[in-house]
């Protein structure tokens, strides 16, 4: 059993006079150990870690984006997804190294606050919380589109467009469910991910065979770069939201068993699995219809693709899968956002009250409301692309900084920094990862960049006001 000592110390107090909770003494394969024999058991295995990563990611890229992406980039949208996957991989590798050196909950926020100090930590931490809020809102709007399509399929006609209303309903429902203490949500999540992967594999296998002409038409009719080269990059920036899940594995790093082995495998593995599904999906979808028609189908384009291949049963299967996938992504993001609030409150960057646990249900009701409340406000806007891009923006800032932190820590090499997994190709991999993350931001819409920057500035000002005296940076303890 590896028994790793911990050397990070915190100090200072916030405006309310609260100090950051003290750091643990050691981490082992099975537990995080605090002073006088208090332990936090690690209970999530490799399968659970993979399910968190894949379950958060698999929704958006397949069930919401194909139509939007094809409209922007043509068949080359597949390349956009591939670019997103490569960037995600370039970030997942350094994140893995940091996570094995600091297998504590909080993910990117934890690494950056301990590696680069409180100001960066506050910007990233508050950004992570709000980034997840934007992401959840985006998934819920996607869920609304699918539920609306289901209603249309069964012939229910409504006098108004129910997308936003359904998103709000599910957002409120999920928050209430988490506060009420649902049992076995993780097992449910594993099951959902399994079913999704089976449905998608069957559907995509059929689609690929059809597209390459084993049976059916076998048409890949258009030129690949039908919209030119530049939209490939802007589309990559848009669809990057599809890859936000792998870092969620790091936010529960403190609960993963055998972190030095399972964390890298879960993060890198989930990115590879999801990227493969995305690229194949776009290939199948664009070869079924051509990008123009696909683009006109909007958020539920995949339903039409399934209908084209397999008729009504196919459409129903994909509708069901789409509901499950967007539901699971939204649920995972709400829980992650609540974890981010806890991490911030533990470090005295938000009031301690924010991580208070409900005595009746044992759940962190304040943190969950701090996730669910803002989500509802954002769902009400119904802006799919803007929500997705702001979520991407805030995460990309964090991802870029994760790569930077890794380089900083390797150079500074404090005694406590002893990762059991080391990134191959240092410093090229994290360097390119940082450049790619920051670079992708340049291809976003100005409005998304504006909202993202405003969130960052507000986060910094909050830190200056509320917790200017708090020090989280890892000190070298001798």
């Amino acid at each position, binding site marked *: 059993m590896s028994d790793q000592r911990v050397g990070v110390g915190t100090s200072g107090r916030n405006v309310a006079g609260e100090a950051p909770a003290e750091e643990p003494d050691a981490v082992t394969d*099975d537990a995080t150990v605090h002073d*006088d024999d*208090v332990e936090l058991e690690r*209970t999530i295995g490799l399968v659970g870690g993979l399910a968190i990563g894949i379950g958060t990611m698999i929704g958006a890229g397949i069930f919401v984006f194909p139509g939007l992406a094809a409209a922007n980039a043509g068949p080359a949208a597949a390349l956009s997804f591939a670019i997103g996957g490569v960037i995600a991989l370039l970030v997942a590798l350094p994140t893995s190294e940091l996570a094995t050196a600091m297998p504590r909950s909080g993910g990117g926020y934890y690494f950056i606050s301990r590696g680069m100090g409180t100001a960066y930590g506050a910007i990233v931490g508050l950004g992570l919380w709000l980034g997840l809020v934007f992401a959840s809102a985006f998934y819920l709007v996607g869920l609304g589109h699918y539920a609306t399509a289901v209603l249309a399929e069964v012939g229910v006609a409504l006098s108004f467009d129910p997308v936003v209303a359904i998103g709000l309903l599910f957002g409120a429902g999920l928050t209430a469910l988490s506060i009420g203490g649902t049992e076995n949500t*993780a097992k449910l999540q594993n099951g959902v991910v399994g079913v999704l992967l089976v449905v998608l594999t069957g559907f995509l296998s059929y689609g690929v065979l059809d597209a390459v002409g084993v049976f059916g038409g076998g048409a890949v009719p258009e030129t690949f770069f039908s919209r030119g080269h530049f939209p490939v990059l802007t589309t990559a920036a848009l669809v990057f939201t599809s890859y936000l899940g792998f870092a969620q594995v790091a936010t529960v790093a403190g*609960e993963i068993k055998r972190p030095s082995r399972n964390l890298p495998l879960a993060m890198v593995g989930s990115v590879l699995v999801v990227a493969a599904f995305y690229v194949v999906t776009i290939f199948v979808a664009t070869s079924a219809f051509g990008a123009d028609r696909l683009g006109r189908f909007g958020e539920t384009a995949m339903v039409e693709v399934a209908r084209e291949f397999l008729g009504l049963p196919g459409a129903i299967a994909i509708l069901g899968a789409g509901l499950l996938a967007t539901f699971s992504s939204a649920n995972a993001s709400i829980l992650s956002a609540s974890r981010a609030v806890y991490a911030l409150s533990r470090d005295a960057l938000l009031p301690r009250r924010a991580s208070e646990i409900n005595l009746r*249900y044992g*759940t962190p009701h304040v943190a969950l409301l701090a996730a669910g409340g803002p989500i509802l406000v954002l769902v009400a806007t119904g802006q799919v692309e803007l929500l997705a891009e702001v979520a991407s923006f805030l995460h990309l800032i964090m991802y870029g900084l994760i790569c930077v932190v890794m380089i900083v820590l390797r150079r500074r090499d404090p005694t406590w920094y002893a990762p059991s997994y080391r990134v191959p190709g240092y410093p090229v991999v994290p360097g390119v990862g940082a450049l790619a993350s920051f670079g992708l931001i340049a291809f976003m819409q100005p409005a998304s960049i504006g909202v993202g920057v405003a969130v960052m500035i507000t986060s910094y000002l909050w830190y200056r006001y509320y917790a200017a005296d708090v020090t989280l940076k890892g000190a070298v303890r001798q």
Partner: protein
Amino acid sequence: MTDRPSILVPIRVLEGESIPEGVPELLANAHVVLLGYHVIPEQTAPGQARMQFEERANQRLDEYEAMLAEAGATTERRLVFTRDGGKTIDRTIREEDCLAVLVPNATGPPEDVLVAVRGAVGVDRLARVVAGLFGDTDASVTLYHVAGEGETDDDVRTLLDGVVARLTDLGTDASAIETRIEHDRGALDAIVDAADPFDAVVMGESDPSLATFVFGMPADKVAERFLGPVLVVQREPATGDDER
């Protein structure tokens, strides 16, 4: 004085479970590993629960530790926040090398103890627990075996005599030991019925078969139906055990 056997006492410390009456006396000669644990839902980070509940849980454990120490036991304690109580208990057994786990129930002063002997396997650990806890006391020990099909009385007597010999080797007074053999019954029901007049039951951990996987461990079922404390002697830890 014999070696103190290390006994794990798991307590769901924040849910009103406590050390029942009679248990400190029962474990007076033991080295008690007191495990306070708290099971939290998935929405809650373990660290979050710790921030809020650590102090209260530690106060309770302080009390329990004092009760055990007063009775004469040596103690060691841990507090764990977990999502999976079973995993925590198994891990603690492994890390602290515990001979047995106590399923705590209230009891009188331990005068009569029923020891269910399943077979030759694990007899050594069983004997160490029994001799360690009751060898120096006035308690009488009844060795009990439910004969299976094709098992003659002679076989059983050889088995039980072996256990008696082991116990006397370890310093138990031979006059305090009785033996009893039961026939033609389901072992579980037989043990529960026989246990009724006794103050405590010591039994071995059963093999993890499909039936125990589905219906729960027999030891737990005995503990559920017999209202006194049950000591479940753990199997020898497998060497080179590489999990997952």
